[in-house]
């Protein structure tokens, strides 16, 4: 369908954007890449009176490394992050997930901040942010807040960002030596939203798992960590038996939604399978020294 009538502002500074949000918070939507928002408008699932287009704000886009973190500006296009050497070297889990987002033409416009602010629980980037404990930097009328990923995702398409705040940057911790990663997903067709996705990051120290991080996409209304499996894995040596047990524990308390793409039971079965696959792949590339 054609889009409904809407007003449009294109601020050129963060301060200007925050000012507009403060004035019109309840009736405005922030337009970044538009790859989710424009369909929502077309389908009348969102009816903002005002679009605040932040693409023209200088300094809101770019990838930089500092203090053991990789900082990604909110309007950094997904393809830019996908091609970034810094992301590939320092945040290999993000690099593994990016090519799975939508299709090439979607990643031409879609932004890192947009996807994370949209917070679709079946999408790839929320699971990556949750697995790595990324930090979200938001700017509002009363200043800047830094929100940890564990608090960012509050529910379906809902984040801790207040209506008068703008997401300006996302910070990912840089991976240390011995890190192995994998992003696994099962979808009916390539590029579709995952029925279940899993972001996995393992650190191997002397052949022993010293850090295990697993976050599911598509299992709940927010990306969820597989805490019981992470606890089991820490301090153990990788083995098929260990990974089978981790898969069992990862899904034992899961209560996934059932829909036309898959029943709740099917999702749990798929979730266990992607845990085994993800752990094998992550342990393999951690042990191999490469990512």
């Amino acid at each position, binding site marked *: 369908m054609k889009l409904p009538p*809407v007003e449009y502002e294109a601020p050129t500074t963060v301060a200007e954007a925050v000012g507009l949000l403060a004035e019109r918070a309840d009736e405005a939507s922030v337009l970044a890449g538009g790859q989710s928002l424009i369909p929502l408008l*077309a389908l009348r699932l969102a009816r903002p009176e005002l679009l605040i287009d932040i693409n023209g704000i200088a300094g809101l886009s770019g990838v930089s490394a500092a203090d053991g973190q990789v900082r990604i500006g909110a309007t950094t296009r997904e393809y830019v992050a996908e091609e970034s050497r810094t992301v590939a070297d320092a945040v290999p889990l993000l690099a593994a997930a990016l090519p799975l987002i939508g299709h090439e*033409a979607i990643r031409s416009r879609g932004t890192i901040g947009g996807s994370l602010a949209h917070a679709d629980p079946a999408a790839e980037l929320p699971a990556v942010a949750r697995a790595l404990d990324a930090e979200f930097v938001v700017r509002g009328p009363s200043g800047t807040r830094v929100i940890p990923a564990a608090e960012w995702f509050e529910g379906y398409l809902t984040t801790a960002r207040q209506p008068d705040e703008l997401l300006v940057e996302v910070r990912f911790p840089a991976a240390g030596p011995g890190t192995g990663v994998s992003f696994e997903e099962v979808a009916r067709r390539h590029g579709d939203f995952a029925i279940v996705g899993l972001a996995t990051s393992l650190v191997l120290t002397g052949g022993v798992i010293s850090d295990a991080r697993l976050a599911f996409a598509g299992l709940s209304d927010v990306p969820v960590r597989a805490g019981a499996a992470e606890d089991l894995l820490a301090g153990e040596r990788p083995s098929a038996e260990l990974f089978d047990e981790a898969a069992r524990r990862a899904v034992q308390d899961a209560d996934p939604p059932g829909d036309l793409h898959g029943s709740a039971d099917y999702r749990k079965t798929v979730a266990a399978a992607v845990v085994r696959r993800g752990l094998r792949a992550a342990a393999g590339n951690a042990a191999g020294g490469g990512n």
Partner: protein
Amino acid sequence: MVDITLRVNGATRTGSPEVRKTLADFLREDLSLTGTHVGCEHGVCGACTVILDGRAVRSCLMLAVQAAGSDVTTIEGLAADGEMSTLQQAMWDSHSFQCGFCTPGFVMQATAFLGDHPDADERQIREALSGNICRCTGYQSIVEGVLLAAERNRERS
């Protein structure tokens, strides 16, 4: 209405679209470039794919006002002098279309992709075209056409 100026197929164009008008509808209705097709209108089918500043994008998923200052290439820009591009000729030779509705989107997506990946193999081409839907061909002839274009480009260089 917002006044915009942009480059389309090498020419400077101006217009005053409503804010809610997508780039796809602006190209079709305001600039009479009806080669860009509008299928699903929410970013699923790929029929409206154009090249914006060197990247394939869905022209139904951006506002025309957002294209101000950009450089857009549509299907009409590929054979401006009447001679088909290597890709267009290869797709012609491979019977890469039946009804033709999806064709402009496939051609623009493949044009952008081959520009960046001249040595692409079949798997990469299938991946690059995975966001474009065709209900007639079964895709095989489209992939063959793009592979043939890649081969001809390599022979020429």
